[in-house]
């Protein structure tokens, strides 16, 4: 069974204090790993798709990386508006008809001014 574990569960940073969020996964062949951001009372907002080990994607202060067992979301010089829950999800590649995303529980990031 596919599994996604995110750590830490919660993270408090000061504005400008860079850090990383971790997503460890077990999946039957990885078709894609997705990062989402979720604000309170809202649905997840898509950030990145990573397809293969060694791949990196960047968007503003966020950079996502992928290895064969885990993904990291690096946040450089965060601002208070980066406060949100960050969700990681995997889609397996084995089996031609497996379309579901398996999510982790998320990391709640709080950035204090």
């Amino acid at each position: 069974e596919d599994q996604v574990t995110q750590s830490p569960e919660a993270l408090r940073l000061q504005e400008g204090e860079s850090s990383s969020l971790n997503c460890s996964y077990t999946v039957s062949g990885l078709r894609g790993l997705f990062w989402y951001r979720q604000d309170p009372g809202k649905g997840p907002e898509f950030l990145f798709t990573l397809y293969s080990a060694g791949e990196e994607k960047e968007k503003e202060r966020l950079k996502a990386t992928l290895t064969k067992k885990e993904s990291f979301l690096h946040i450089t010089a965060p601002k208070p508006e980066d406060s949100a829950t960050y969700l990681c999800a995997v889609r397996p590649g084995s089996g031609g008809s497996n379309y579901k995303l398996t999510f982790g529980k998320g990391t709640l990031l709080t950035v204090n001014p």
Partner: protein
Amino acid sequence: DAGVTQSPTHLIKTRGQQVTLRCSPKSGHDTVSWYQQALGQGPQFIFQYYEEEERQRGNFPDRFSGHQFPNYSSELNVNALLLGDSALYLCASSLSHAGLQPQHFGDGTRLSIL
């Protein structure tokens, strides 16, 4: 460009009742997935609809059923509601047969069971 829209935003029901939630996909998308998100948890896959058929189902009982219409919109029906069905129900849309496309989510329906 309208994103994924869901209705209603909030709903309160009592145990044993039935509920129908609605979803309109993002313009150009043909596939709709439904997820259940309990407080403090990540979304859990319920099922996915494509070409008006249920294409894949997660570990949810038959009380959960769905439908997709020719215009790609979708409904989620839950019968015989239980207290444990209280959650945020998320709809996500995507485009099939276009490579590995991300699923885009609506803001969900918050369902409370009394």
